[in-house]
């Protein structure tokens, strides 16, 4: 039996992502029963969302009905089993939904010290303790099972083309194999339940950073989703953050409460110090009465810092800095007064913080760090404005320079220099035959006869699957066979194959890109073909590893060839830039000469020319 746990804080959020049109994730956040679940549905024709919602409703109903009579661990496992049976039944009832399924990760909080976590598929549960996260679940994927059996290393699994193929889900069968663990909870721990749309698009370190930030669970749940969206947002993403009750307040909470209050209580002192340091005499405050200047500038910053301390954000200080600096720059103000003003404000803030430190060292230290960060935010906002201004000035400079260039009439010497530039071939048009040293050693685990047979069979299937016209892909598949079965232990076979495939082609989008597209297609076809050949799983993994290694060497060698092909043109580009600079100088001199001549002979120009005064011809 579970009861609501006092002090526990939970929040969940979900987002469709940037690529999908339907959100197939579902969740349960039921604090009354301590039940929290994330489900990630799958299956075409809108069935993924049906699967996850069907399982969600079944799990919730089961827990509601049976929680008084079952032990938590058995209750959660049975609820998930019930969810699987419900999805299976729904899938069988409709042909369109046949094959639909869902992953699930659920947490049932028993009391302030214990919780049960269960999962099926690749939705995950993480535990954050003392600032570090650890995974509580192991993904039920084919690749993960190969790792368990020692057939793949974790690194290889991470790069494996089938790393997302599930070995278990809810709905494929009426019964699901559920992994259940009981977790001990300590004060301040945080649990995170999420779908693969989070960890597939955000690093573990970044997740740890946000989960350990000390922010409210609802902010963390939302920030984690934003993180996944910034990382590409290629999938639906769902997060639930569960925070165990705290024993002692965290430093963030201290700053938000006592720190913010201590700062605000000293606002008059801040204004006084700012005035003493000459804020009212700063050119930015010109035209304002001293009290008005203090109120508009110093009090506004003091208030902005207070609100940012209270909410652990930087948005108020950012807005303050942008308003003051933006207004000053719009009035064409110079940098020095703004720097002076910011320095006065920063020093006043430091004086106030030092005084708080004298009275309460612990609080003063936390406030010192927080206020210093607020001042960094102000500089960051001003930096953005400065960079924007710099871009505008650059734009004006280019415009002015272009206008001047257009008025220049190139004399004979200039034409000569232009011809010298033109005589060089257009470097993108020229085909190239580059050279690359082939004797770079590579590590080679040795190639057995069985492995060679596996590689050959796989690539034969791959070639058969390749479209007839895709000659380049077929050529790459043949090269992969040569490289993967080569036991010489150096880079030679990859380089020779790359050189043969590269042939003679221009270094541009029409020459090089089709080559890399074909390399990518060859990789996809090979990864699919390896599963069509009958062989033991261990050998299949070895074959895939050998072909994948060969592919990496071939791509590396091809990239080397492209770099070598480009190198001479890079040198020529530098020469051309130098010639252009010289030419510009000569043109400028010629322009001056022409202007001098015009001035000198202006009075002797024949007025009887066949143009009228407006420049129109009479003919």
């Amino acid at each position, binding site marked *: 039996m579970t009861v609501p746990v006092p002090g526990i804080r939970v929040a969940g959020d979900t987002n469709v992502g940037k690529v999908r049109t339907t959100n197939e994730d579902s969740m349960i956040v039921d604090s009354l029963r301590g039940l929290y679940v994330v489900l990630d549905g799958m299956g075409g024709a809108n069935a993924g969302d049906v699967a996850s919602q069907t399982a969600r409703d079944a799990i919730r109903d089961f827990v509601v009905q049976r929680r008084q009579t079952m032990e938590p661990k058995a209750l959660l496992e049975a609820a998930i089993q019930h969810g699987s049976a419900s999805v299976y039944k729904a899938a069988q009832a409709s042909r369109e939904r046949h094959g639909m399924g869902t992953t699930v990760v659920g947490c049932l909080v028993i009391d302030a010290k214990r919780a049960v976590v269960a999962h099926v598929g690749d939705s995950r549960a993480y535990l954050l303790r003392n*600032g570090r996260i650890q995974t509580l679940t192991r993904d039920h994927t084919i690749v993960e099972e190969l790792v368990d059996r020692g057939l793949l290393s974790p690194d290889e699994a991470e790069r494996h083309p089938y790393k997302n193929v599930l070995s278990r889900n809810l709905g494929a069968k009426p019964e699901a194999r559920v992994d259940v663990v009981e977790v001990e909870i300590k004060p301040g721990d945080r649990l995170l339940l999420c779908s693969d749309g989070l960890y597939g698009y955000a690093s573990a370190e970044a997740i740890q950073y946000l989960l350990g930030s000390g922010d409210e669970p609802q902010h963390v749940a939302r920030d984690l989703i934003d993180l996944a969206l910034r990382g590409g947002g290629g999938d639906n993403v769902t997060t639930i953050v569960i925070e165990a009750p705290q024993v002692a307040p965290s430093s963030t909470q201290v700053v938000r409460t006592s720190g913010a209050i201590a700062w605000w209580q000293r606002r008059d002192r801040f204004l006084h110090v700012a005035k003493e340091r000459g804020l009212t005499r700063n050119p930015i405050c010109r035209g304002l009465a001293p009290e008005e200047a203090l109120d508009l500038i110093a009090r506004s910053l003091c208030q902005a810092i207070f609100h940012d301390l209270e909410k652990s954000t930087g948005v108020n200080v950012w807005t303050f800095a942008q308003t003051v600096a933006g207004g000053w720059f719009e009035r064409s103000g110079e940098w020095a007064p703004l720097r002076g003003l910011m320095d006065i404000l*920063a020093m006043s803030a430091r004086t106030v913080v030092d005084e708080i430190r004298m009275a309460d060292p612990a609080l003063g230290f936390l406030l010192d760090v927080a206020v210093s960060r607020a001042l960094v935010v102000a500089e960051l906002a001003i930096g953005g404005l400065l960079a924007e201004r710099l871009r505008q000035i650059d734009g004006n400079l280019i415009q002015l320079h272009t206008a001047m260039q257009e008025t220049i009439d190139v004399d004979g010497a200039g034409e000569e220099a232009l011809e010298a530039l033109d005589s060089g071939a257009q470097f993108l048009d020229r085909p190239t035959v580059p050279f690359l040293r082939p004797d770079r050693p590579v590590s080679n685990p040795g190639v057995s006869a069985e492995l060679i047979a596996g590689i050959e069979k796989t690539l034969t299937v791959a070639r058969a699957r390749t479209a007839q016209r895709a000659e380049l892909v077929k050529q790459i598949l043949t090269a992969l066979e040569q490289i993967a079965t080569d036991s010489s232990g150096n880079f030679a076979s990859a380089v020779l194959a790359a050189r043969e495939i590269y042939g003679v082609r221009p270094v541009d989008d029409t020459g090089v890109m089709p080559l890399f597209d074909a390399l990518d297609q060859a990789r996809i076809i090979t990864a699919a073909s390896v599963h069509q050949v009958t062989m033991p799983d261990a050998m299949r993994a070895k074959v895939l590893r050998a072909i994948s290694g060969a592919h990496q060497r071939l791509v590396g060698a091809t990239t080397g060839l492209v770099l070598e092909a480009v190198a001479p043109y890079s040198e020529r580009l530098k020469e051309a830039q130098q010639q252009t600079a010289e030419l510009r100088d000569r043109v400028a001199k010629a322009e001056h000469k022409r202007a001098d001549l*015009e001035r000198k002979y202006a009075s002797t120009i024949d007025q009887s020319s066949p143009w009228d005064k407006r420049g129109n011809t009479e003919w």
Partner: protein
Amino acid sequence: MSTAPSVARAYDTLRTKILQRLLDMRATLDPSLGRIDEANARAQIGAVLDHIGNFIATGDLGLHRAFLHTFLAMRAAEAQDPAAVLAMLIAIGDTAAQVAQEEGAGTTEGAELTLLLTRVTASTARAVNDLIAEEMERRMAQWSELSKRERTGMDPS
């Protein structure tokens, strides 16, 4: 701002952890760092961390400014916006302070180092803005000079 050797040593001890954290988070810290390979990212971030170590040990503002000047120039040559460079430097400083806070929780040395790294970040932000402003003033002067030349060159009077 030269500091006690113990704090400088504490920073050196944490340097590897800070670098690893930054490498793991580089895509979320800064898009341009996320795009480059690990070796290059390691070199760029490592250079900043080394310099922070020197600044903590010596407190030499002149050297600090010179390093930032070079760093900004190099990133400008890679077509990076100065605002993005500023954001990246601040993110590196913030992460270093965060690691110091986590690793030194409850110790005086950890607290000192956290505060010091936050202040180094503040000095960095201030110095970078000064450098951008100086560059801006140089280009404005260039623009005025060019405008003057255009006027005198085009006007026959």
